[in-house]
């Protein structure tokens, strides 16, 4: 801007300078001409008066370096010339000024020289004796004058341009200075040209608006940051080239990344082939989802693109830890399969027997056995369904009222009830220990002891022993059920508390049982915030210790 102002000032100055030079010189030249003609006339009349008085002798001691005098007779013959020999000169009668003077008494004319560099003014007057006296002066023309004045003009132009340059430079800077010194952070506080006021007001308004918006954005990004930081799920944002824009704490853990991950290619964090394919698919506009193991846990990755105006602007990667869910899913599938199998087997047996009876294929003496069979299977079904109902009650966490229960009483009750079956299997069942009172649900606690003792008897050898022991220790109650039975192989020990899990895969009916007993025990113990410990050796026996 200051350059433009500077250029304009220089241009104006140049135009003014040249115009004034031209006008002034043409006025001066005109004035100069007029005054010269006047002077010429005065000189002529002065000399004419003298010549009238003293004749041509006057010229003898006349010094005329400036003017040229010529005396011409009435016939046109040159009588005298102050700068040339009169005798060599031609007849002057034809000359304009002389002819005019002879006629009117006075004459004048001006003529250019042949080179045009000089202009000569002539003035003539008729003397009393009839002769004509002429005076003339030569003068340089405008062109020659200008050429002659060129050095002076150039000097003037040079000096004035330097002055103009300096002045206009300073002026331009002075004009622009307030603009340069505008405080754009606080537009309303400036005192400057009033022409700028509307712009500054607008600027002020926009400034405020922008500050507000930036603040809002920052607040939003802070909120986003806080939400993502406290998220358990991993969240990674990528731009459309796959560069990481943001990564939250959970995702950093998952991809073992740190702060430097932002700005790097996501491939440097995770180069799994499935992941690259999923990201590519998401860039193509399709949601991608896959499960993969990372650091020993199972994760579900959901990859989606983010859009703005229908264009892909980036990728969002969400990572869920689904280890527990996957485990539960597997368990549920297994449970469903098991339940169906367990329910179907007795039913098949019942249907088979019933069909035989229906078709009269059973001998009368066998009828009783078949009906007994049907009854046994039906009983098994009922006990199975009862077990499932109990389990689902425990699952649902229905909270029956708790009461003070003496475990010793409960155990005693169990021992009395199971004595019959123990005797049948020729197993000795003993109860040791002391009265242990705890807060709990009597029915559940009964189930725990019943199921443990039932198993201990069921999977025992003939002549084996089952011992229930109860004691108080450091404020907690320790219940242990040990047997001298067949024991549980080590590889099965971690799974026996699962529903329907059986060490003996054939699910043989030989020993009976539904496969749900230990599962019920586990649930009931967990319900009472207890812990179970299993200690078993094949062929030697098993001890289950529960601590409340």
């Amino acid at each position, binding site marked *: 801007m200051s350059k433009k102002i500077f250029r304009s000032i220089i241009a104006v100055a140049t135009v003014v300078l040249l115009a004034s030079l031209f006008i002034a010189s043409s006025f001066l030249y005109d004035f100069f001409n007029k005054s010269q003609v006047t002077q010429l006339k005065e000189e002529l009349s002065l000399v004419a008066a003298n010549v009238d008085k003293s004749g041509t002798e006057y010229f003898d001691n006349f010094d005329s370096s400036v003017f040229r005098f010529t005396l011409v007779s009435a016939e046109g013959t040159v009588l005298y010339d102050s700068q040339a020999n009169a005798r060599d000169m031609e007849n002057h009668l034809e000359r304009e000024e002389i002819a005019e003077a002879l006629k009117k008494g006075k004459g004048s004319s001006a003529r250019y020289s042949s080179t045009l560099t000089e202009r000569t003014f002539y003035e003539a007057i008729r003397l009393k004796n009839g002769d004509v006296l002429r005076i003339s002066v030569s003068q340089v023309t405008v062109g020659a004058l200008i050429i002659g004045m060129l050095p002076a003009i150039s000097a003037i132009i040079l000096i004035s341009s330097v002055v103009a340059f300096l002045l206009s430079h300073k002026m331009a800077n002075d004009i622009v200075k307030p603009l340069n010194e505008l405080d754009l952070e606080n537009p309303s506080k400036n005192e400057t040209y009033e022409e700028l006021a509307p712009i500054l007001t607008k600027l002020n308004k926009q400034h405020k608006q922008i500050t507000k918006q930036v603040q809002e954005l920052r607040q939003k990004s802070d909120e986003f940051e806080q939400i993502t930081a406290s998220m358990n799920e991993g969240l990674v944002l990528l731009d459309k080239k796959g560069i990481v824009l943001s990564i939250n704490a959970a995702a950093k853990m998952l991809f073992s990344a740190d702060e430097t991950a932002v700005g790097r290619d996501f491939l*440097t964090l995770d*180069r799994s082939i499935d992941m*690259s394919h999923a990201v590519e698919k998401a860039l193509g506009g399709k949601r991608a989802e896959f499960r993969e193991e990372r650091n020993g846990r199972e994760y579900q990755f959901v990859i989606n693109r983010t859009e703005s105006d229908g264009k892909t602007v980036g990728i969002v990667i969400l990572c869920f830890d689904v280890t527990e869910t996957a485990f539960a899913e597997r368990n549920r599938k297994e449970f469903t399969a098991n339940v169906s199998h367990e329910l179907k087997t007795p039913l098949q047996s019942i249907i088979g027997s019933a069909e035989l009876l229906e078709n009269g294929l059973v001998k009368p003496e066998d009828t009783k056995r078949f009906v007994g069979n049907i009854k046994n299977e039906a009983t098994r079904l009922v006990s199975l369904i009862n077990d499932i109902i109990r389990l689902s009650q425990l699952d649902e966490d229905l909270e029956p009222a708790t009461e003070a229960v003496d475990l010793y009483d409960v155990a005693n009750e169990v021992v009395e009830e199971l004595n019959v079956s123990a005797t049948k299997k020729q197993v000795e069942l003993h109860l040791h220990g002391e009265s242990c009172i705890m807060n709990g649900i009597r029915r559940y606690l009964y189930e725990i002891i019943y199921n443990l003792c039932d198993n201990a008897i069921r999977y025992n050898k003939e002549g084996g022993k089952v011992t229930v022991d109860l004691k108080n220790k450091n404020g907690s109650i320790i219940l242990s059920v040990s047997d001298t039975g067949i024991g549980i192989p080590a590889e099965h020990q971690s799974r026996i508390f699962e529903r329907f899990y059986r060490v003996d895969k054939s699910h043989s009916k030989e020993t009976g049982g539904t496969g749900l007993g230990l599962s019920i025990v586990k649930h009931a113990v967990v319900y009472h915030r207890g812990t179970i410990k299993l200690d078993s050796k094949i062929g030697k026996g098993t001890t289950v210790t529960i601590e409340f």
Partner: protein
Amino acid sequence: MRSRFDEQLSLLNKKMIGMGAECESIIALSAKALLEGNVANARKVKEQGHTIDQMEREIEAICLKLLLQQQPVAKDLRVISAALKMITDMERIGDQAEDIAEIITFLNGKTGEECHDIRLMAEATIKMVTDSIDAYVNQDLKLAKSVFDHDDIVDDAFDRVKQTLIKLIAENTANGEYALDLLMIAKYFERIGDHAVNIAEWVEFSVTGIHKGE
């Protein structure tokens, strides 16, 4: 001009990481096929080997294009020439994983469980390849050096495998063919370890400009 160059370099980097991931996956797959005696997995290895070959050619083309069109100098030149060398090693890893998978199809579902060290070798080589690719991705000299050290574990395990297999044949000569197959597999794992070391050396070269072999 430079930005286009940078773009091409980052594309090269991406492709290299992608090829590294394929290598990791292919040896993990062939090791899994061995441990599970799974012939179906062994077949998958072959397909993946094909992908690796294609990626090698693709990366080669990118490198040559960069060299011809951009005439890189100093570090850029090192990175590109190291990439050219590394893809050869990666391609060899892919080939050897394929070879392992091919032998597995002859084992008739046997899993080499007589020879515990072969499993150890598989795990160790997978770790070496993963580490060498990680070293490339993060330009991590320390990790690259750890790959060199890890090679000793593989070499020691290979010696032990030989001893075990000699015993296996001595016990029963009928085991001869099986033992030789296992020996081949062990040798391939050992070679894969060497290639991982090569990759780590080229990573070191591309960072420092000094190659260990010098």
